[in-house]
């Protein structure tokens, strides 16, 4: 016997889909397991209300990465006079550090306002001495993610590579050891788990999401699709 598709049947299907969606948010909760308390973060800075460091949605391409700080190196490569290899301590302790409240806007529709602390990317570049034909910085991450930014954008703006957020060292799920604070750019430019900064003359280079249809300029005041 063949049953016709009724509107009630379709309605039940839609309700079932919604139920699955709601339940999928609650399945991780286990009242028997002790939950680890997070580090103490600040939630207000100079009159600005800050978002929690747990207010991010995890949307990285390979899930949170655990990086061993002892074996970690940050490499500056490509079109530079002096290629560099820094340990975590060298990056953090041998460079001037800065603080700045910046909002990250994700293309998914959420945003977070965080006090970022780190060093300026242009300070690192100055030590590596970029060659005159370097146009683009290609950032590589531990999970294989890449994104790029014009060298002028980094040199002309105070672009931070953060190692602290809300006065707390970046946790692994937030990009330890370093996350780029690409202010005025959509969230997919805020690369986490940075391992290498490559200087290139390829102005058409497109990173992970950019090669999948998202804008390469990623300006916040423009659509995140297209050029």
């Amino acid at each position: 016997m063949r049953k016709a598709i009724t509107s009630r049947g379709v309605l039940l299907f839609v309700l079932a889909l919604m139920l699955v969606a709601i339940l999928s948010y609650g399945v991780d909760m286990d009242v028997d397991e002790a939950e680890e308390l997070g580090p103490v973060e600040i939630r207000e800075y100079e009159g600005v209300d800050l978002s929690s460091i747990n207010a991010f949605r995890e949307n990285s391409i390979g899930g949170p990465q655990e990086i061993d700080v002892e074996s970690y190196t940050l490499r500056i490569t490509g079109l530079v006079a002096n290629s560099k290899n820094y340990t975590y301590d060298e990056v953090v302790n041998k460079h001037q550090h800065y603080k700045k409240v910046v909002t990250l806007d994700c293309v998914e529709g959420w945003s977070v306002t965080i006090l970022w602390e780190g060093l300026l990317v242009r300070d690192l570049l100055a030590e590596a001495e970029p060659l005159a034909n370097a146009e683009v910085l290609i950032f590589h991450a531990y999970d294989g993610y890449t994104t790029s930014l014009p060298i002028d954008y980094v040199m002309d703006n105070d672009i931070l590579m953060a190692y602290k957020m809300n006065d707390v060292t970046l946790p692994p799920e937030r990009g330890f050891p370093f996350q780029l604070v690409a202010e005025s750019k959509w969230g997919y430019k805020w690369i986490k788990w940075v391992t290498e900064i490559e200087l290139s003359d390829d102005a058409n280079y497109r990173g992970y999401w950019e090669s999948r249809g998202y804008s390469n300029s990623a300006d916040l005041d423009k659509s995140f699709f297209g050029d």
Partner: protein
Amino acid sequence: MVNQRLMKRTIHWLLTAVVIIYLITGFGITEYRIVERLTFGLLTKSLAHQIHIGLVIPFIILLILHIFLPPLLKYFKSKKLGNK
């Protein structure tokens, strides 16, 4: 009469289809790793995003039609009968 019924049914089914696609593409944005695997890479995050954004206006139009068309048709029908 038949045309009115057909129109209502068409809007009803189109709205249903749009709502389902809207839900699936929504998951395709936020849970893209799962959805891409389930669709064998066909529904990528960027495609889901473009479809999701593109469906906003059709969804609103269909929803308005779905809500207001039956009473409007009823009103016109009663007016027509009243004139006879």
